[in-house]
């Protein structure tokens, strides 16, 4: 459940156009080339703003036959807008602008439940190969347990609300380790078995981290 929601939210297409490279560098075409069904994205604009907060996408699968439902569940949908606007407590309202104006921030973002403490420009080597992404894709990290600066830290209980901040990471590519080989032997036996393993890891770079202002959150 966690991972699905994470993946759904991680693929956010709402990127400020200023952050985008020129179109000829965009590997958006490469994405269609990778024939994984996970990347069939529908732009969030296609949803009319008048749709109720509980989005029709979450309801639709229940009417479909089961095998279709399973298949549909793999397709990431844009993050559903939360039901009601976030209500901040009074001390948070006081302190959040102070946190936002600090020069640099750090975040403890969680991907598949694992924490990564990062600032803007850091590379994160995920301990797995993320399927269906190509270099240049932008992911939005929405699950954080800690968000802070030099003087202030916002702790989540257990998570910081995803509407408070924006954190994006870009897929740099796929890397591997040198092949590991483990020699296995049994006692009193000449037989030697060498187990080899070489895994692929997806590399991300945190490209954007921003604490939202009060107007942006509430309005």
């Amino acid at each position, binding site marked *: 459940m966690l991972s699905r929601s994470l993946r759904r939210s991680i693929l956010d297409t709402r990127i400020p156009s200023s952050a985008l490279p020129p179109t000829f560098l965009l590997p958006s075409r490469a994405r269609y080339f990778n024939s994984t069904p996970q990347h069939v994205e529908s732009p969030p604009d296609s949803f009319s703003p008048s749709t109720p907060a509980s989005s029709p996408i979450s309801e639709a699968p229940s009417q479909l036959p089961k095998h279709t439902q399973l298949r549909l569940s793999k397709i990431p949908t844009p993050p559903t807008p939360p039901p009601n606007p976030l209500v901040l407590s009074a001390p948070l309202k006081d302190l959040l602008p102070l946190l936002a104006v600090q020069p640099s921030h750090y975040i403890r973002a969680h991907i598949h439940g694992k924490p990564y403490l*990062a600032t803007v420009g850091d590379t994160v*080597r995920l301990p797995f190969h993320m399927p269906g992404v190509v270099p240049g894709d932008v992911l939005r990290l929405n699950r954080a347990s800690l968000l802070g600066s030099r003087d202030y830290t916002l702790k989540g209980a257990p998570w910081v609300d995803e509407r408070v901040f924006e954190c994006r990471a870009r897929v740099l590519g796929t890397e591997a380790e040198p092949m590991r080989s483990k020699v296995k032997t049994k006692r009193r036996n000449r037989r030697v078995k060498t187990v080899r393993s070489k895994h692929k890891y997806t590399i991300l770079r945190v490209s954007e981290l921003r604490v939202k202002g009060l107007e942006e959150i509430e309005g």
Partner: protein
Amino acid sequence: MTVRGLKKVTVSQNGVGAFILQCHKLSFHYCDWAGSSRGMNSFLRNSLQRFAVANPQIEIEVSPRPRRHPVIIGHYIGGRQKAICVRNLQKEQIMQKAELLRDASGEKLKRVTKPVKSINESVRGVWSPYYGGGITV
């Protein structure tokens, strides 16, 4: 008057602003005669077009190399190269290898133990014992 170095304000990091793919060129070598190139030839015939259209930022060079096994060589920004011998592979496997070269950064493979690598200064600064009101002895 002492000479003062200019302090570097920012270091450009790929992907923070613009993103440039590290692999800038892939050269495919094949042999017309040898049987180990059969999969490669089929790849060049059938799949290369799709690959090239999907990755317009990579320069693709196809040239024969008679009497040699087929090879894909990736050329990376920074001058490094990675070569993969694709003898006796099927065209689907060759496609995987080409994608591997495309996704690679060009660096030598290293064992990484810490997941996050940073060149930034610590956000919270160095810890001091006087934080939090200090300790009265």
